[in-house]
Structures are given as C-alpha cells and as structure tokens.
C-alpha cells in the first residue's frame, strides 16, 4: 500500500470526488468482508507470507505420504492464534485439489481437549475412518482401540489409503493422560512397515515434545515447525490493510489506505497491537464490529467510529469499576488502603476501626454507618474483586473463621485509589485535597 504523503493526499481528493457517487456498493463489500472475517468455513484463496514455510512442508509431507507411501510425523508449534490450523487446512485443501491425492487420502481429526480419554479418541477415530466392526466382540472401548490400530497396521498394499491424523492440542494428549497409549501406538505405526500414516500434531506449547515419554519420543521423528506471530508494527499495519482490501473495488481500497494513514487511527491501532500481544484475532473483532455498521448512508469506514470501537475493546475496567463505588465503599477502600502495609492482610474489624477514624477526621464528608451495613458494603467490594480474600474466593476459609475476621488484601493500586478520589465528582474538597497530597507524596 502506498504510504507516501503526496500520493495519499491525491487519494484523499479522489475519494472526495467519488464520495457522492453510488459507485461503491456498500452491501456487497460488507458481505464480502464479513465472510472473510467472520465465516469460519471460508478459507482465503492465497496463503499468507508468514505461513508459507509451514504450508509448503505440510503439503510436501501429505503428497509424499499419498504418492510415495512415506510415513512421517511432525509437530507444528506456535502461540495461540498464529495460524497453525489455518495453514494446515490450506495445505490439505490444496493437496486434495489434485484428484490422485484426494482419492487415496483420509483425514482423521482428533482434539486433545474434546477427546479427554484415549478410548474416546479411538472410538472417534474409528468412526471417522468408517471402520465396520467385524464382529460383536468389538463392543467395549478398549477393544475398539485395539481394532483401530490393528486395522491400520494390516491394510494391504492394493487398497491402501494414506491416513493423516491431525492431533489438535497435542499437549493435552501428552500431559493430561494417565499413559500415552494413543500416541505410542500412532508413532509405532509410523515407524512400522505396514500402513501409511502421517501424524501431524498442533500445539501451543513450544516444549511439548519434552512432555512425551521416552519410548514415545524415540518413535517420534523430532520434526518441529514453529509458526511465528506478527512481530513488527509495520507488518501489523500491512496486515490490517490486507484484511480490509476487496478485489476490484478501487474506491473502497483507496478509502481504506487513506484511513490507515490518519494519525488517530494509527495511534489506536498501535495501542491495540501492544495490548493484544500482537494477535490477529483482536483486530479481526474490531473490524467485524466496524464493518457491520456499514450501510448505504455510510459507505466508508469512519475514523472516529473506528477509534471508538478500538477503545471499547480495551476499556479501562478498573476505572469503570472504581467509579461505580458509592461514598461508603470509597471510604472503606481508603481505610483498607491505609492498613495495607501489614503483610498478612486486613480483616473487616480492622477496616471498620480505620473507617471510624476516617469518619472522625472528615466528619463533614463521610457519614457513619453501623457495622452491619458496612459489612455488606465490604462484601460487595470483595465481590467486585476490589479486595480479595487471602485464601481464595472459594468458601475454603469461610467455615473455620468468622466472616468478620477473614483476611483480605487489596487488589487495586494505591495510586488508582487516590487518583479516583481526586477525580471523582461527588467528593468534597477536604477529601480531595488529602488524596492529592498523598498522590504527590508518592
């Protein structure tokens, strides 16, 4: 996308001329973009640059498995949302585009989080392979398990189809089981003469090969491919542009490139980039939210709206939370904050005494309430996660210790508390001054 200043000014003029012409078909663009961003079943036509290495290696392995009968096993690792499943699906789609390959290939998909038991995995695997139970003996799950693998092993050469096992959340197969039975068998088959098997594991953990048992690991060819995330700020901007460009809609594309050069938009996008750990899904959410507001009256993306939407995806929750507190709760928070220097935490009795001292000190601003009502306000603070009990939110300590003696800690920063007091509208002057003093002294 051209980012030279002179050219972008020209495009601005160009857009202005065309803004009133009904050339730009908003509904069509909207549906195209939404199907690209929202529709989980539509894959992009071209492979993104970033995913090319993975894509090419997987396609290669699939083709060699089908055409040459080569067994293989591979692990694709990468942080969440970097495009592992996407690359895999693209690779399989393009490999099966060839009729020779698609006839002789079966794909079995297993998932570590859904198939929590090896037996469930085996049952699902045999269902996907459409294995007929040969006799009534194969009723129990472990029998099916054994049958699955014996069938795979004994496939004869003439009718042999290549089987690709895709194991999603591979670390769940390795770590959360009693034994790695399924993995052992799978990798064993890949090392043996009989069947043609390709095992592809996908995982978010970079060290998931270490989780394998010794005998499993020895049967695993230690092939790992790492998929990187988008790391660069400029690359991120390019990516956003790529997501928004529609083919053959020149007016729209120019409007998009113009929008992305504006300072406000760039700033908030960079903000989002840093906050979201460079993950693409966040920007996809933002774009969905903004694109769905397109209509005939507003055929182009509005920069203010876009900035607004980005802001609402990452709002200041603790600010929202703290501004929701009533005066009583705020004074309780102040009282708790003065006590928080104690390393073990504070309990309600201490906070109540500190609250009474505050009431004495700021007698005009802060009203006194009896301990029953104050206890309920204190519990509301705990529910809002402003303070938290030291022994966790589950009822663990609740039975042994009387409610008023349970220990809590603050979850918000003292700076936040004081700045809240200083900026909140309903606070009287003396409290505000005190808060400002504390802020400036820190």
């Amino acid at each position: 996308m051209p980012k030279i200043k002179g050219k972008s000014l020209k495009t601005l003029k160009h857009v202005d001329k065309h803004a009133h012409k009904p050339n730009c078909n908003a509904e069509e663009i909207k549906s195209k973009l939404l199907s690209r961003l929202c529709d989980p079943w539509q894959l992009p036509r071209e492979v993104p640059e970033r995913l090319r290495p993975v894509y090419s290696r997987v396609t290669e392995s699939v083709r060699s498995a089908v055409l040459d009968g080569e067994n293989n096993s591979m692990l694709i690792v990468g942080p969440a949302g970097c495009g592992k499943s996407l690359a895999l699906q693209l690779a399989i789609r393009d490999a099966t585009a060839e009729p020779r390959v698609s006839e002789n290939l079966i794909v079995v998909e297993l998932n570590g989080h859904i198939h929590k038991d090896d037996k469930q995995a085996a049952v699902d695997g045999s269902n996907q392979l459409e294995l007929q139970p040969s006799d009534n003996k194969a009723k129990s799950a472990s029998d099916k398990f054994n049958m699955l693998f014996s069938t795979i092993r004994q496939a004869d050469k003439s009718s042999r189809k290549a089987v690709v096992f895709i194991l999603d959340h591979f670390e769940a197969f390795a770590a959360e089981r009693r034994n790695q039975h399924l993995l052992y068998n799978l990798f064993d088959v890949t090392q043996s003469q009989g069947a043609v098997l390709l095992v592809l594991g996908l995982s978010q953990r970079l060290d998931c090969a270490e989780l394998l048992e010794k005998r499993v690991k020895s049967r695993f060819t230690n092939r790992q491919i790492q998929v990187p995330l988008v790391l660069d700020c400029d690359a991120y901007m390019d990516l956003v542009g790529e997501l928004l460009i529609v083919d053959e809609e020149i007016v729209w594309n120019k409007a998009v490139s113009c929008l992305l050069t504006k300072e406000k938009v760039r700033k908030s996008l960079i903000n989002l980039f840093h906050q979201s750990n460079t993950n693409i899904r966040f920007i996809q959410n933002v774009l969905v939210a903004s694109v769905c507001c397109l209509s005939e009256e507003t055929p182009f993306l509005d920069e203010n709206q876009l900035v607004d939407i980005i802001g609402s995806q990452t709002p200041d929750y603790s600010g929202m939370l703290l501004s929701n507190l009533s005066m009583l709760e705020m004074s309780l928070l102040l009282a708790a904050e003065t006590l928080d220097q104690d390393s073990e935490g504070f309990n309600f009795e201490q906070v109540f005494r500190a609250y009474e001292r505050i009431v004495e000190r700021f007698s005009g601003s802060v009203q006194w309430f009896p301990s029953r009502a104050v206890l309920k306000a204190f519990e509301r603070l705990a529910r809002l996660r402003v303070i938290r009990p030291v022994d966790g939110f589950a009822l663990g300590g609740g039975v042994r210790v009387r409610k008023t003696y349970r220990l809590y800690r603050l979850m918000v920063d003292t700076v936040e508390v004081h700045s809240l007091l200083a900026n909140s509208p309903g606070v009287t002057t003396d409290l505000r001054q005190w808060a400002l003093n504390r802020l400036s002294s820190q």
Partner: protein
Amino acid sequence: QSTWGVLILLSLVQSSHHPVTPCKLKFLCTGRVNNIFGINNQNKIPVMAEDELCVQRAGQYSRIKTLLSLPIPPATMFIVGDEDSGKDTVVKRVIQDLQITNTKINLVTHYDAKLIYQTVAKLLDKSYSKVINNANDLVQLARSIQRDRVIRDPHKMIVIIEETQRLINLTGNPLMILLRLREYSKLNITVIFLSELPPHLYRCLFPPPICIPFPPLNRTQIDSILTADYSNYSCSSEFFNQFVHLILSIFFPVTKSLRELRFALQRNYSAYREPVDKGELSESNVSKLWRRVESRLRNSVQNVYLRTETVLEQNSVVCSNTDPIIDDDEPMTSSSFPINKTQRITRSSLLDLPYYSKFLLVAAYLASHNPVKSDKRFFLKHHGKIRKQKARKQLKVKTQALQSGPKLFTMDRMIAIFYHLLGEFLPINVSIHQQIATLESLRLLVSMGTDDKLTVPRYKSTVTLDCIRKISHNIRIEIDKYLFNFLEN
C-alpha cells in the same frame, strides 16, 4: 404456604420419570409455583423500567443488535457489567426482537460442565435420546446434525451464559470448549457470555470474544429508571419523581446498586404516602412530607443491604416474602434501634442451651479471648504479684487482640475455666464431652487441628461479645470482670 409448595413440587418430581436436575427443579419452581401462589419475584424488573433501561443503554443495544443480525454473527461475545447494569435485560430484548433460537444457561443451576453440555445439546436437537456426558458427545451430536443439514445453514442459534465468573472454578475447562463451540461443532452458533468480572481476570480467554462493556449507571440514569415504574404505585409521576429524588439523596452515598434502591423505594413508599392518603397534607407539600419521613429513611439507611423485616411489615402486602434474618445481637445499651420497634430475632434469643452448656460457652469465650498468662490472675484465688505493663504496650496488645479475632485454646483450659465459673461440683449425670460435641455441631465452637485422638483437641469460640453478655447475664456471671480487654490497669 411454603409447605404446600414443597408438597406440590415433590409430587411433580415423583411423577416425572427422568432424573431431575437442579435446572429442571428451578424451572418447576418458577413455572408452576408462581402461578399457583402468585408469588411475585422481588428482583424482577417491572416492564416499564425495563423499557427505560433499554433506552439508557441504547448504544449497547444497537451494537448488539447489529452484530446479531448479521447472517453469520460473531462466534463469541463477552458482555461485562455489574449486577444491575442491564446486560441481561438488553440481550434478552435484542433476541426477542430478532427472534433467534436461543437457550439460557445460568451457571448457578448448571454447576457442572456436563449439565452445560446437556443444555446445549437440547438446543441443537430437542429429541436427542442418548445421554451427553462430556464434550466429546456434544461434538458428535453436532457433527451428526451437520451431516444431515446443508453445511452453510443460515439457521442461527445463540447460547447465553449467565454468571460466567463461575466458569473459572469448574473442572473440565468448559470455558475453552464454549469459546470454540463454533469451530468444533461447525454449526452457526453464537455464545454470549454475561459476566460481572472483566475479561482480564479470566485465565485464558482465547479466541478473544468481542467485548461489550456496560459501564455503571450514573445518577441521572438511575433516576430515570426508578421513576419509570410509577404506574405500579398508582400515583402521579411528579409525586413519584419527588419521592425518588428524596430516596436517592439519602441512599445514593451508601449504595449505587439498583436493586437496593428499588427495595428502599418499595419499603418506604407507603410511609411516605400515608399523610397524603389520610388527607393531612397535599401531594405538592414536599417539605412537610419530607420532614415526616426523614427519620424513618435515615434509620432504614442503616439497614441497607439487610432485608430485615418488622412485625408490622410482615402483615403488609408490599413485601410479603422476605424471610426474617437472624441478626447478630446489638449491644444492649445502644439506642440504635429503629423507631418502629422491631422484634428482631437475635442469635441469643434463638439459643436455648441447657444450663451447663451456657457455662461452657462462656468459658470457651473467655479461653478464646483472654491471653493465657492472664488466666492465673482471673481464676486463682491467690495469684502472685502482677507486674504492670506500660500503658502504651497494654493498649496495643488489647487492640491487637480485638482485631485479630478469637484464638485457639486447648480443651483442658476451657474445662478448668468452666469448673472455676461453676464454683460447685457437677452432678454425675452431666457429661461435659457430650455438651462440647453439641456446641461444636452448633458451630458455636469450631475445632481446628487434627482429628488425632492422641493430641488434646483445640477449639475456637465463634460467638460475639454481645451474645455472650446476654447469656452470662442469664446465668448471673459478670463477664466484664473476667475479660482481659476490660481490665482497668
């Protein structure tokens, strides 16, 4: 009334042959019993206030509506807001307007992952006969549905999950399955999470849902929502507006919670209305009406959040289904009783312990709250010399003791104090250990430490000072003489 309700419920439960889950029970409760007894749900928002709430949340309403009216809505949405901020109302209104198939899962009744999957399965296919035990079965069901239908079926489905913050503690990690429900099931399902906690407090919300925050309501918004249901109170809107202003001016510094304010309105409306009904004052005479009601309002502020009830109010129609709450005892000499003399049920009045158990209880309290070294001074006839502690240090020790709560003591210490208090010998048929066990089952004593029979058991007393005062007054012990905190040195 409640016993009839229970009987009817039991008969309904027995008549159904399928096992009854808590969600089913809840449905039975709210559906049938409400109709029979006409019980009104106190927390349910009246219709006009609902409309007003949607008006106040117009921005969020329109955004949710545009997102859900897409042919393929986003896979997950996350709606964050405090308890009465209207997220439930707005989402349900949108779904009603758009007429989408949906199911609501409340994580209070669906306390287990299995129940969640079962309800989702019911949404997908009502007549599915096999039992769903885990996520795998659910995915198999979804796949079988997908095979039968056209793949890009535009039939939208929505799963609403209320009280999402309870998902954090559930075993089996259903949160992850729900976040990826569309990907796994390959159907056009949207999951909407309604949560009171913001997303960064969840362990791992990936793939990230579209967040729609519901910022807290400010005072003008609450005002307009509260004044919207004046028709329920059969009065003019200006009169009701005035009343709402008064209530807000008193209650707003204490609580910003919509349901508490609404409860306060309900409670105090009849008292406010009384002079006008009797004809003493006119509707527009706000200052005099205010003066009449002021003290009552100020007293009820001190009971905010607590749904205590007076004997008078038990007979009135407005709040007919609050249960009396067992209060902690008030200090006997305080004048903080509300004006309309409540017959509050306090813990000491509920406790009807045998004579010797009362002594044991007092002995336990003393053992918990007095330091061990002071035992010698209180309970022996000839204690030796007592060195005075420096005043400052003593004060510090006393306040520490007050604030850190009751301490553990061994059983023999308590029994020793008990014998001293009693002063006389026990009759033979009284078994102390039996009575200690009773006290423990009543949670007046809590045992800490191991169940080991070789070590002496250690206990802690959980009774408040005011309750103990009443009990000791009953058995004629002057408790102040024995308490370390009230020592006059």
